[in-house]
């Protein structure tokens, strides 16, 4: 019995972490967040490590790894607030195309980092405002909101009925929708009766992709929150007030203890949820829901508390701590807010209608 990452997964984590430390310092994140640069360079760099093709089988040009490996990568990406279309292009899109057995020709270009696939799932999870899409006779009309990845070449669009269509970004009117978290992009897509290719009419395909994405997003929060705790503890040890490091004040110590007490079990939960997606299908859905919702809650409290431990410095842009705060906030709201996701968890167990 061995609960934890394999040697290969630890190596994967180390190499991604090293790459990000060397190539995506906070300065680079700031540039992307401020619009001075796009995340393309980062994505190209990650392509050399095989990240876009992580979950794509080798015979399609990928690395052929599983969900737990994606969890490992997301933990690193979140920990570094790395700008990238990882969840959309590397997790959701390959899952859908492979599960549906459609347009597998795209997989090679995804793995090669040449093609990015955006995701418009909002309407299938719980539509906001007047977002709605209609498909008839191979044409799609309407609009999607807060779709992932403004720079995508294609979008996978899910309807309320959980059918999934592929549309080309160049056929649509795509407008960036800035959110608090500028390390990932979201957009509005207007479809004016344009070509839409049916990829799947099986809701199970949508669900499989959503489950994976939720666990991966939870892992991104895990990484971000862990980073914030590490920073808070380190800052408290060097910051002196009243002639002592603030880390020696019981109030500060207990804030840090509570943060890690809340987050530490999340690591095991995220790992197990990743493992379940690969190997314990009967538990995977429930795990995906609970992991997404639980990490959303812990992410919120940790990101608040870690900011507080930093005092005024946490509120400024000087240390850039807020990028992690906002990353946790983004992950909480996207792909299902906790209330919605917990209700799904109840439904899965026959506890809600």
């Amino acid at each position, binding site marked *: 019995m061995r609960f934890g990452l394999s040697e290969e997964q630890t190596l994967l984590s180390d190499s991604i972490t090293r790459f990000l430390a060397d190539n995506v310092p906070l300065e680079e994140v700031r540039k992307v967040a401020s619009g001075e640069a796009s995340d393309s360079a980062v994505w190209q760099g990650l392509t050399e490590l095989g990240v876009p093709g992580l979950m794509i089988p080798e015979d399609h040009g990928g690395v052929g790894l599983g969900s737990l490996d994606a969890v490992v990568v997301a933990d690193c990406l979140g920990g570094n607030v790395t700008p990238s279309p990882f969840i959309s292009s590397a997790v959701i899109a390959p899952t859908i195309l492979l599960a549906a057995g459609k347009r597998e020709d795209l997989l090679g270009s995804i793995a090669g980092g040449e093609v990015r696939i955006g995701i418009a799932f*909002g309407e299938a999870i*719980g*539509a*906001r*405002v007047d977002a709605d899409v209609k498909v008839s006779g191979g044409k799609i009309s309407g609009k999607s*909101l*807060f779709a992932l990845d403004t720079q995508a070449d294609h979008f996978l669009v899910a309807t309320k009925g959980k059918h999934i269509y592929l549309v080309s970004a160049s056929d649509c009117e795509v*407008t960036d*929708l*800035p*959110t*608090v*978290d500028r390390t990932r992009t*979201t957009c*509005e897509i207007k479809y004016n009766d344009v070509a839409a290719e049916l990829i799947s009419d099986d809701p199970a395909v949508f669900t499989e992709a959503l489950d994976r994405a939720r666990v991966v997003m939870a892992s991104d929060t895990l990484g971000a929150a862990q980073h914030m705790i590490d920073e808070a503890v380190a800052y408290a040890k060097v910051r*002196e*007030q*009243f*002639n*002592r490091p*603030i880390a020696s*004040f019981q*109030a*500060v110590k207990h804030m840090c203890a509570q943060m890690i007490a809340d987050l530490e079990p999340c690591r095991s939960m995220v790992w197990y949820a990743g493992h379940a997606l690969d190997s314990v299908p009967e538990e995977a859905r429930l795990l995906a829901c609970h992991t997404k919702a639980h990490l959303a809650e812990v992410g*919120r409290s940790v990101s*608040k508390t870690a*900011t*507080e431990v930093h*005092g*005024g410095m*946490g*509120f*400024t*842009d*000087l240390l850039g*701590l*807020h990028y992690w*705060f*906002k990353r946790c*906030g*983004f992950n*909480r*709201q*996207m792909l299902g*807010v*906790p*209330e*919605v996701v917990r209700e799904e968890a109840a439904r899965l167990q026959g506890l809600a209608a």
Partner: protein
Amino acid sequence: MELSFGPEYESFREEVRDFITTHKDQQAPSSAGSEAGKSWQKTLIEAGYTARTIPKEYGGFGAAPDMVKSRIINEEFSTARMPGGLGGQGISMLIPTLLEMGTDEQKEQFIKPTLHGEMVWCQGYSEPGAGSDLASLRTSAVLDGDEWVINGSKIWTSTAHLAHWMFCLVRTEPDAPKHNGISFLLLRMDTPGIEIRPLVDMTMNANFNEVFFTDVRVPKDQIVGRRGQGWQVANAILGHERDSLADPNASMTRLNSLIDLMKTETLGGERLIDNPLYRERLMKIQGRVMAMRYNDMRVLSSRLNKDQEAPLARMITKLQGTELRHELEALAIDAMGEVGLSFGSNPYLRGGGSWQYQFMYFLGLIIGGGTNQIQKNIISERGLGMPKEPKIEK
């Protein structure tokens, strides 16, 4: 329980309302330094609706202090969304300080122009190394002939880039115990050796600045109070600032905006207010806001009635009020889902982006103005009589 202010004050309220009706087309001045702003300030002072208790000789209205009248003015202006008088730390912090501790010359020189918007001030208290432990500040001022020579830096200085003058705390007696080595100085912001850097915060606005001093020379007499007495000078009015950070009436107004939002925004076609989980959270917050509102009435009453005391009710306002507002803003964000993330130029912004902005801003207020951990120290020590922590002197 007598919640009316009585007939005298009701007629005063009518007076204020008449004024508001007369001036109902008054626009909010675009900026503090604008001519329109100064002119409106003049009108308000003449009517006695701002600078009410500041002596006439210093440009004020010269009335006796009357908390009820001040409150009535605030209430009526706020209800009518009528622009109030000029604000800023010069008016709210420096003028009361000078009135209490300044020399006649200082009062003469500074109060009137400050009041009338001719002289804008910033405050230089906190330093990068002196936050919760403000008294450990290190910016030094050394007397060289007839001048103080200042070196060091200040942080959290709002409006530094607009200010003509700064009032600040500096260490003038390096060998004295830390609370006794500080002096309160006034200095012109165009003095050579001052550098201002905007300080961007997590809302991505430069609401604050850092100010750096390199051999900044200030005339010897620009000190308020005596050498080494600056801590007492500053503390004479510090308490006022803290209370205003978490006004329960503002929370109530904000709550009503949240209710409106939840009545219009939808999730899967259902109004947010119809979702039992969000509605329950809304009601929980409403209950807490109401409790804070009556707490505030009790605080006011204890100020009006000499025989009433409510020190704890007053002491807990900042701690509770800032956490409550932060949670209130969070509920709006949560309930809106992806839409709640909107920021910047996003066309789906709700409330002009104020929900995310205030969510972060109130986290800043949880930290600022004495962190909520410092507040809990104060409440337990001064409010509950619990012992201080053992002190460590270096």
